[in-house]
């Protein structure tokens, strides 16, 4: 095998002029190409998102760059519309890096504090799952990428800061993956429910209402049921499937399932 390889090498003698000349020609071609303007961008002075620059690049490359291409789908800092956020916690659930904390923002009623995501960009991997999970579309990613700061604490962006970014109307990249609709609904294990109202209290979309149910007299020989004669009814069309009610239920009587 080795002899074969050597034989092959010997049968094709290398032309010394070609060995030296070919790389020299390649280098000269590259030099001539980049003499007027190299491909690199002088970053703080030129920016990719600059429309003038984009047109120039499109002209030079001969390939038009449309919206949604190349750098419009860049996943940068999040923009958060605090007004439409329903505090459903889905962004924090979906985050693979656990970089989202739900912090209280002013504006909610004292009994039902409004919580919005606060993102630690020191941990964030810019996967966009949070933006994808957001049921109200209030958390989306912008094309803004300048995050460098000398202090680690400044990497944590509060909801107010992300709201400011939202108000600047930067190009948004709302990440919505095509996927089958979630068929699952929240079902109630009726005998376990104690009618405590926790689910209705914490539901971000207020789609749970506690309905009075008729009192049933215990049969002879049975203990009276523990419930206090109220039962949650979930409006499926308003539900965003955030699962808050499941997590707050003290008796674990709510669960995912399909209506059959």
């Amino acid at each position, binding site marked *: 095998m080795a002899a074969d390889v050597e034989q092959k090498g010997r049968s094709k003698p290398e032309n010394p002029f070609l060995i030296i000349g070919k790389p*020299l020609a*390649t*280098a*000269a071609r*590259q030099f001539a*190409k*980049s003499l007027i303007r*190299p491909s690199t961008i002088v970053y703080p002075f030129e920016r990719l998102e600059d429309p003038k620059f984009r047109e120039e690049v499109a002209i030079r490359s001969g390939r038009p760059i449309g919206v949604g291409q190349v750098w419009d789908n860049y996943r940068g800092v999040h923009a958060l519309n605090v007004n439409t956020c329903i505090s459903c916690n889905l962004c924090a659930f979906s985050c693979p890096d656990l970089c989202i904390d739900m912090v209280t923002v002013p504006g909610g009623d004292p009994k039902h504090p409004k919580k919005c995501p606060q993102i630690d960009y020191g941990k964030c991997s810019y996967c966009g799952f949070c933006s994808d999970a957001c049921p109200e579309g209030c958390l989306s990613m912008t094309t803004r990428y300048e995050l460098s700061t000398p202090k680690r604490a400044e990497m944590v962006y509060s909801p107010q800061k992300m709201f400011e970014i939202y108000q600047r109307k930067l190009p948004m990249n709302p990440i919505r993956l095509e996927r089958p609709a979630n068929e699952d609904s929240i079902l109630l294990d009726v005998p376990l429910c104690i009618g405590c109202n926790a689910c209705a209290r914490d539901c971000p979309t207020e789609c749970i209402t506690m309905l009075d149910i008729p009192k049933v007299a215990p049969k002879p020989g049975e203990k009276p049921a523990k419930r206090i004669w109220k039962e949650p009814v979930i409006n499926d069309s308003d539900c965003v499937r955030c699962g808050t009610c499941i997590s707050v239920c003290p008796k674990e009587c709510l669960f995912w399932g399909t209506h059959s």
Partner: protein
Amino acid sequence: MAITTLWDVAYFMATALLGLVGRIIPPLAAPLGNVDLIWGLAALVFGAILLAASMINTIMLIWFERKMLGRFMDRRGAMHVGYAGLLQNFADGLKLFRKNTFKPRDADGLGFYAGPTAYLVTSLLMFGVLPVSTGWSDGSLPLSMLLALVIFSFAPLFIFISAWSSNNKYSLIGGMRSAAQMIAYEVPILLAVVAVVVVSGSFDLNTIVNEQRNFWFWTLPLTLAMIVFVTGMLAEMERIPFDLPEAEAELVEGWNTEYGGMLFAYFMLADYVRALAGSILIVLLFLGGWTLPSYVPAALTSFPLAGIFWLMLKTYLVFGVFVWIRAALPRVRTDQLLRIGWMRLIPLSLASVVIAAAFVLVKCVPVLGCVPSMGG
């Protein structure tokens, strides 16, 4: 007095300086007017200008290489300090000034410190020998070209001293490679120079350059010698296809592995001083030096400091070719390096000597006709 050359500038400055002192202190006016004194001060001023100019040109050469290499790699090189990064290398030099210079515990102090210093000093000595324009003929020597090549070949000694005394295996290997490489490439360089000497009939660089002005297609019979000389110079300067002594992929940084701070700056500077001196030497020997061919209009060579302008332009072009080679070619192996030196370049240089001798005998170029005005 018309100021046309660098020597005139130095002479003017010396005269003005002594005249000013004489004006301020009248009793000294007469002794300061002595022509010999003015001449001596002018020589000092000339030397200072030459040293400063060579240093600045060396740093500009580094800038030139960084920018040009950037274009070869489709990027821009230094951009931010000064216009287009012109002052970046000065900033880097200042940074190296501020760094602590340290010596490895088991290194030999004398060799460790003396090696880089001697390397830089002997490299700068080149500029005392190389004529940069017609005005420098006051200090010319009959054997200036030989002296230049002798100074150029000092380097392996000091590289080897500093490599050995830093007590590091990578340094030692790099130093040995450097010595082997430089010795291997001295021979073809000197043989290629013999071809130049045969055609020009002189060892004086001034004469060699003036011969080329009369005989503008000088490089035609000496093409082979020029190729050999440029290849050998690449190896002497340890530039990229032949930078085995400091092959950073295999030896950490070669013979300057243990050096940091200002001592590293000495090596870096001396490397580029040698590159500048080697480029100037190539221009002087093969490309007409500060002269232009006699058929170009006289206006191009009659403005002040025209000689230096044309010499530096040609020098930077030659160095641009070196950068081009650096951008294009990969590093050769040690055995390939020595084989190229001993088995390819030496026969080629001998052939170039034969061509030059035949050319002098016939004094004709077949295509261009006979040349009556040749020296030799």
